[in-house]
């Protein structure tokens, strides 16, 4: 059996998921359990909650998420470049600077458009 580097990550996933199971299991043995409707009602500010919290939410979070996706993809492109940078010829610098400048332009565009304004 070959134990590669990632085997440990796999082992850790399994062992780590035992922690919440063990913790919650042990707690369920020792803790009291006396539920009643008042206790189980939604805790907001002392007044009875009106309606669900599961409503449609403002779209402005979604625009941040979209901009995030652009920059996350940047990470995917730039990390391999950064690793190999020492072995690359000078033109790698030009390529990367062009790429980053395009990103800066995109950021400036989003900024000008007001997508980064919280209102």
């Amino acid at each position: 059996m070959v134990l590669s580097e990632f085997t440990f990550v796999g082992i850790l996933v399994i062992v780590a998921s035992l922690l919440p199971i063990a913790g919650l299991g042990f707690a369920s043995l020792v803790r009291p359990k006396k539920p009643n409707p008042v206790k189980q009602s939604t805790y907001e500010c002392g007044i009875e909650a009106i309606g669900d919290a599961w409503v449609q939410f403002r779209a402005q979070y979604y625009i941040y998420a979209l901009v995030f996706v652009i920059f996350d993809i940047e990470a995917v492109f730039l990390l391999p470049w950064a690793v190999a940078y020492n072995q690359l010829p000078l033109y790698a610098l030009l390529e990367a600077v062009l790429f980053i400048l395009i990103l800066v332009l995109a950021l400036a565009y989003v900024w000008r458009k007001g997508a980064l304004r919280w209102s």
Partner: protein
Amino acid sequence: MDTIVLWLTNLIPQMSEPVARLVVHLVYAGVLSFVAPVVVVVAFTYMERKVIARIQDRVGPNRAGPLGVLQGLADAVKMLTKEDITPQNADRPVYNLAPGIAVIGVILIYAVLPFAPGVVGADLNVGVLYIVAVGGIGTMAVLMAGWSSDNKYSMLSAFRVVAQMISYEIPVIIALLMVVLVAGSMQMGEIIAAQDVPFLFTLPLAFFIFFVATIAEIGRSPFDLLEAESEIVAGFHVEYSGMKFAFFFIGEYMHLFVGAGLVTTLFLGGWRGPLLGNVVSDASLFGMLLGFVYFLIKTVFVIFLMIWVRGTLPRFRIDHLLDFGWKFLVPVGLFGLMAVALILKLPFLSSSGLQWVGLLVANVAVIVISLALVSMAARRSRSVALRGVAGADR
């Protein structure tokens, strides 16, 4: 790891090498997921409460045990024996899964954190990328908790957190890119090996960005909008009590330690220190211990800095927080990245000593220019605002 495996195979000759490796991995995983949470939470909640108390001119915990050192254990017992209240309307499967995922997501980051020479779960060749990837799990847990509680405060908190976490993940990635660029590897071990001069001194800009963004990723004050008590009660965990709340708490402190550990590893030279490597061999048991002590000293110092920041700065407003991320850290980071790339390719800076000086100069230049630009913009907007007030008076 290899040293320990070798030691174990010498100790029990019947044991074959893969079996010994498996045993070592299992034990190490057990230590990370059962011993580390207890030690980290008890030690650092105590430290945090004492330091914050000093900053606020109080005494801090002093009842449970001498100087209050047993406070953490008392809290643990309380959490264990507390009733677990689940709100009637909660989405139960999601509600119950969230605390577990929060804590597992954090423990997984520990897999690539080198504690001492050779003591690292898995020195992955994509270590840095792994940290970013696994770090995203915590965000999901918070969103799950906030959504499933069916509480408007939790919901608000969950959405704020997602906006905050994704905004500050970009600066983290950019700071990591600078480190990877100079080290030429994403592997934690090689990043430490590349730090003959700690990156704190050659890449101060990357250090600053990473430090700030790490505080934001952990969700600590001044970036603790996710649990702003005065605005949204306790944020995403309002509806959690007892052990389930405790797991969010454990997750937060585990994240604090691993965040500080990453700052140490990436910018302060990790376990490296005087005597280690030339006088004391870092493959020996004593070398490991010494390395661990160095690592711990640096990490505790970084945690102290984070507590200090918490005790000193007021909480950000959500729009200021997002502006600081997107309109300051990201552009400054991108220009810093270009400057670092340029310095590394300059032909007359071919010796490593000159290169370090060049990197330092470039970083400081980017910091100075960006601060000058920001203060100029601030002055302009202030004078515009003042003119507006004056106009309204007339």
